[in-house]
């Protein structure tokens, strides 16, 4: 399978000298396109820090990161425009859906292609198609506050997918959902990963969804340990 995102020996140190916090001490990770992996670890182990580095929100202290063929960081060197890079290459799904409350469902999703310069009509068409695929097309004209938690999360997934990024980062996406809905979201992410050939990394604590990952990265004290779960059932229907 083609490589989606890869990091080699990524180090992130907050602060300097005596007060320095070594959040990441040399992390290696590789996720293929169309693959969904879990990222787990106890609190304070460095999950959020790693996610921020992967998301080009903060810069690692050293190490190398590539998305597809593009080098993003290489030992202190970084691409010029991280903002445009986030917009074009990375989709984000948060703990809470964080939809823009003053935009309707369609425009919440269409905003990204609009920001990338696409005409409104084209952007809205793309948004509606995705909402269709995620089974929320019937709420396309609603405001976020009118949706249920599950519907909001599906709209958030549509927003993460709409620019067809090669990588999607999900930060505890099932935290606010009950077991059935949580599994439904993971199921949906698996489907989307295959359908759009996207590498998806899911940070989670959620015991209910951990068994669904075929491959897991367990992070402890800033170092990842790769785990395989051969009996995992990623496409389990609920």
């Amino acid at each position, binding site marked *: 399978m083609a490589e989606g995102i890869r990091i080699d020996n990524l180090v992130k140190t907050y602060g300097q000298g005596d007060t320095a916090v070594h959040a990441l001490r040399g992390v290696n990770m590789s996720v293929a396109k169309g693959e969904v992996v879990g990222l787990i670890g106890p609190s304070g182990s460095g999950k*959020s820090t790693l996610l921020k580095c992967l998301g080009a929100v*903060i810069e690692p202290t050293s190490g190398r990161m590539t998305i597809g063929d593009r080098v993003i960081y290489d030992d202190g060197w970084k691409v010029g425009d991280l903002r*445009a890079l986030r917009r074009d290459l990375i989709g984000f799904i948060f703990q809470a859906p*964080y939809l823009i409350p003053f935009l309707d469902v369609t425009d919440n999703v269409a*905003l990204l292609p*609009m*920001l990338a310069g696409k005409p409104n009509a084209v952007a809205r068409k793309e948004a509606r198609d995705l909402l269709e695929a995620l089974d929320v097309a019937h709420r396309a004209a609603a405001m976020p506050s009118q949706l249920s938690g599950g519907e909001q999360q599906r709209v958030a997934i549509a927003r993460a997918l709409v620019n067809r990024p090669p990588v999607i980062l999900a930060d505890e996406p099932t935290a606010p959902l009950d077991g059935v809905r949580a599994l439904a979201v993971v199921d949906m992410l698996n489907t989307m990963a295959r359908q759009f050939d996207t590498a998806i990394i899911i940070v989670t604590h959620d015991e209910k969804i951990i068994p669904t990952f075929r491959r897991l990265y367990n992070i402890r004290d800033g170092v990842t340990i790769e785990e395989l779960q051969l009996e995992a059932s990623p496409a389990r229907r609920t």
Partner: protein
Amino acid sequence: MISLAGRDILHGWGKFVLTGVGLGLLIGVTLSMAGVYRGMIDDAQALLDNSGADLWVVQKDTLGPYAEPSSLNQDTERPIRAMAGVDRAAGVTYLTMQIAHEGKDVRVMVVGAEVAEPGEPGQPPHLIAGRRIVQGHYEAVGDVKTGFAIDDEVTVRRNTYRIVGLTSRMVSSGGDPMLFLSLKDAQEAQFEKDADAIVRQRARNASSPLLNPPGNPAVAEAVNAAQASSTNVNAVLVTVVPGADAEEVAATIRRWQRVTVYTRAQMEEILIEKMIANSARQIGMFLVILAIVSAAIVAFIIYTMTIGKIREIAVLKLIGTCNRTIAGMILQQALGLGLIGFAVGKIAATFWAPFFPKYVLLLPADSLRGFFAVMAICALASLLAIHAALKVDPAEAIGG
């Protein structure tokens, strides 16, 4: 691209409009203050326009007749009338006083002008009702702002006058409506002594051997008569013949008479730069304070709205919205608030202007200036919120 600012405003329009209305009332007050100032200038100009004069001849070295007391003998006008370039000259008196009308006191400026053919300086240029004064006594023409009606009886000092005509926009530089009397009546009102004073003066005359020579009672009577009446005026209003240079005519009058002469431009300077200047500074202070208060309100509201959206702004930044778009959203909201505020303010100021006791003149040019000032203030006030928004770290959307 859609307008993020517009969508946000539409989403929470109730709060936004309410704030805009509050701001608008403040802007309305500001526009009214400017209108009061313009009204004062306009009153002063109306006073000068309606006097019909090209030159004002006043007591030597005074700023009369409007800004300082001035007293001239009525006979000053006769030699002036004969001078080259002078078309007409007429003595006038001005006296601001309270007069009783239907149980209420009305503050008016009593103007005495010679009963003369129309167009004479000092006469009202046109009447909106009734007729001019034709009798030498007991007739008056009042401005509509006095509240008097034709055939009303008004009492000035000891005499009663009948209103025979009405004028409009005839006001003193202080905005008091004018009441025209014949010159003689007005002189009586202005220079008349009370009964007690006359009695004492007569007793004094009677005891003076000079004014009351023994065996000749006619002398004392003549002295008493002379003292009881006055032939003084406050100014002589002069018009120049068409084509004559008012400045030159003024110079001629100054050369031959011991008087001070003002041209229209000088008179305007006295009224506007000397009399109104302090009020203008006062109003200027108000404008500055109101501008600061408006800016504070806009800054506070826009800042609060922005802080309420910090999470959304972090998400917008994380998904790749550039700073310019976010700053633009906040700026547009501030300008939108200013737009609503200005519209409400303009409507409010126009609505309540007639209820002000003094003339409020809302000039379109002032409104335009006000509009740009409001927009500039709103833009400035949004800087605080923009600063806060640009400081938001996109990493906040991910959390710890």
